[in-house]
């Protein structure tokens, strides 16, 4: 059965290429940091399954250290200038969107074609991502044939974007791993007992409301719905909505995360989305964007609670 392995090889080779190109990038004063960061991720993707748990733990700590102590710089990757891009945009027209759209189209088509096969050719969780990776390779081949850029362009451009994301690239994976440590240490049980002692959570609706409002409030405090998600899911989502009341976990997860985003709309802690645009638009009130968003965020949170309540116990 085909699992994540082929995809991990492709991703690992991309990261290895970013590391190699970072070594040669004299325009980046922090290139040792970038090289080490992408090289460690390449090692994780290519060899992680053979390293053993302790070695993987050391690898994560090294990644967190490089990212956390700000040792990453930005790529000085060779790319095109504004005038060249404008000319290409005018000349090539809306077809420029096509290669990017090949990726989700392939992922969706592959998923639908190979779902429910007997015996299964792909492991269920890996199916969509396998075809996503295949879509990327098809899109790259198509774009290379069409645009005829320098041979290294896809890797240089990928590195340019990867360096823009920087340490935040591993944040979701780190948070999911923290969720796993929470599970091993029994955090869910502890929060669950606190929550059920002090909050009225005896009814299915109350559990849904507590989960969604908790996601939004934790996100307001932390500025990041990703960080709130493992905590609230281990505490209320899994033990109560799924465990006690037999709700559907996929619906709970999807709508729960989106309830967190209602909190993102309302918090100055989410600076990238709320404070930076206010500065970019030269607003005198740095909370101007948040004030414009709150009248959408509040009804949407209420709507999410109702949506989850009516859907999660039905499917």
């Amino acid at each position, binding site marked *: 059965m085909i699992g994540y392995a082929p995809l991990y090889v492709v991703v690992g080779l991309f990261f290895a290429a970013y590391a190699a190109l970072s070594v040669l990038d004299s325009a980046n004063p922090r290139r040792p940091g970038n090289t080490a960061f992408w090289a460690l991720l390449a090692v994780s993707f290519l060899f992680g399954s053979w390293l053993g748990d302790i070695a993987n733990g050391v690898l994560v700590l090294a990644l967190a250290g490089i990212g956390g102590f700000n040792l990453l710089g930005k790529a000085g990757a060779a790319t095109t200038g504004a005038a060249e891009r404008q000319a290409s945009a005018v000349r090539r027209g809306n077809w420029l969107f096509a290669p990017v759209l090949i990726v989700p189209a392939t992922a969706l088509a592959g998923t639908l074609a190979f779902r429910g096969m007997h015996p299964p050719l792909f492991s269920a969780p890996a199916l969509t991502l396998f075809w996503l990776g295949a879509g990327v390779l098809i899109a790259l081949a198509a774009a290379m044939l069409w645009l005829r850029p320098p041979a290294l362009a896809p890797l240089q451009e990928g590195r340019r974007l990867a360096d823009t994301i920087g340490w935040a690239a591993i944040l979701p*994976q780190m948070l999911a791993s923290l969720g796993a440590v929470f599970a091993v240490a029994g955090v869910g049980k502890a929060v669950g007992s606190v929550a059920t002692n002090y909050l009225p959570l005896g009814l299915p609706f109350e559990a849904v409301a507590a989960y969604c409002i908790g996601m939004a409030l934790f996100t307001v405090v932390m500025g990041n719905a990703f960080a709130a998600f493992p905590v609230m899911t281990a505490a209320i989502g899994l033990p109560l909505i799924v465990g006690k009341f037999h709700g559907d976990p996929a619906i709970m997860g999807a709508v729960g995360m989106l309830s967190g985003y209602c909190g993102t709309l309302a918090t100055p802690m989410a600076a990238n989305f709320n404070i930076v645009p206010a500065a970019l638009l030269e*607003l005198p009130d740095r909370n101007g964007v948040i004030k414009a968003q709150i009248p959408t965020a509040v009804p949407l949170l209420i709507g999410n609670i109702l949506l989850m309540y009516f859907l999660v116990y039905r499917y």
Partner: protein
Amino acid sequence: MWTLLGIAVVVAGFAFRFNPLLVIAAAAAVTGIAGGMHPLEILAAFGKAFNDTRYISAVFVVLPVIGLMERAGLQQRARILIGRLRGATASHILFIYFVYRQITSAVGLTAAGGHAQMVRPLIAPMAESAAEAGLGGLSDGRRWHIRAFAAATENVAVFFSEDIFIALAPVLLIQGTLAAGGIVATPLSISLWAIPTALLALTIHGLRIALFGRALRRKEPPA
């Protein structure tokens, strides 16, 4: 009960703006120690979890495609496309941009917009000049309100549609968190259930844009 200290570390660490990676590492250590685990046991548990959840970061496999198309003018093309709206009213510009951003984020084209790429250079000025033409002048307060509304429109559209794209980090974080609780969920099922909220966001924010457009057509009270 002491295992809850780890949650306190996450909340305080994010709230005080320490680097999130360090906060997470500290929270894992505190949680493990409070749960009576040996330091090496914690390291092994975290390393195993990180290795098991590599699929979350595998989404970055799309970066070379997006970078290559940006190099060929993807964002400039998006600007040309949206620029055709010149001449519409402010509320029409905002609403069409909202729908455009919902569709582009749902198919993974997050790069076809953004505050720096589209809102500041294009959407805000277009909506401002449309309102200005309709009213014959615009007070600073209204100008700022239009700009803030344009930024809000970008955020609401992207937040509540991006999870429809099967292979975005949040979708896989949901999958990973459920897997930590012993539950198998596929990315497709998670992203499908993001659609109702996207439609709700369209309704609520669309209504607000319409009301905003009506408020803009009224003459301002003299300040």
